[in-house]
């Protein structure tokens, strides 16, 4: 199958591959998989006190489109607030990368990964608030 130039660009030179410290309270980790094809994707965010995503890393074991989708996702969410990042739709990834219909599930995976990382971060924050570890919040 022919990949679009943008997919190849991200695949050959993926942005933000790596890991953040999972136990850091400011880090949210999203882990998603595609049961239909067996791809696995981990996306992590580090959020500052203003709710802005300062850093994002990913690790994807899957096809070129899955790697490109997650690479693009981390690029897009850096500098955004978590609310803004949460509103990213898989269709935007499809459009940007020119993904063919059979690869749309890769973009869905990336959207799920963002949402799951944000959900994990929020869960951590709530747990912290409950334990009274945040100042007055």
């Amino acid at each position, binding site marked *: 199958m022919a990949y679009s130039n943008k997919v190849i660009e991200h695949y050959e030179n993926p942005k933000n591959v790596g890991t953040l410290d999972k136990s850091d309270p400011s880090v949210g980790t999203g*882990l*998603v*998989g*595609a*049961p*239909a*094809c*067996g*791809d*696995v994707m*981990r996306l992590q965010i580090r959020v500052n006190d203003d709710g802005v995503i300062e850093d994002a890393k990913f*690790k994807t*074991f*899957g096809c070129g489109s899955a790697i490109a989708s997650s690479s693009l996702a981390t690029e897009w969410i850096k500098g955004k607030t978590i609310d803004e990042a949460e509103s990213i739709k898989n269709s935007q990834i499809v459009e940007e990368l020119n993904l063919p219909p059979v690869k749309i*599930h890769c973009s*869905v995976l990336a959207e*799920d990964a963002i949402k799951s990382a944000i959900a994990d971060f929020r869960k951590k924050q709530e747990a912290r608030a409950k334990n009274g570890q945040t100042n007055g919040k």
Partner: protein
Amino acid sequence: MDPFATLGVPRRYELDLLAVEKTHRELSRALHPDRFAGASPSERRDALAKAVEVNEAWRILRDPIRRAEALLRLLGVPVGEDREPKADPDFLMEMLEQREALAEAKASRDLPAVRSLAKGIEGRARAVEGELGTAFDLDESAQGAAAREAVVRKLGELRFYRRFLEEVSAIEDELAA
């Protein structure tokens, strides 16, 4: 298409694949174009179409994943993209760790480590195939939605294992080259 009907084998997950292969070979021989040299064009066309169907049925039944998908479809359970439950987070975490270990073994060109990881996954794939056989064998009427979802989950696991083992083959080729 019902690949079980095409090859005349019982509609179940656990099959005697040697016997199915034999049936496939016999049917293919009977449908070979050489046998229809003197037949009418429409008979030749029908025989060819049937031969294609027989081959496809065999490809489905010999494949543990496609066989499970075919059975689920025949039971009216949707399979494929977007229709399957999300994988269990603990399972995903473990698969990710296994994939990372595989990537490390590849980077250090450690073929024995690659093989040992593959062996572990192969064993788990076989275990899941066994579980699928039992699950499908349950009386159809006794299978509630929950039981079917469990089957679809197992099938999902099998796909993650296959993906892993495809990666292993690619690495073995690369390291051998």
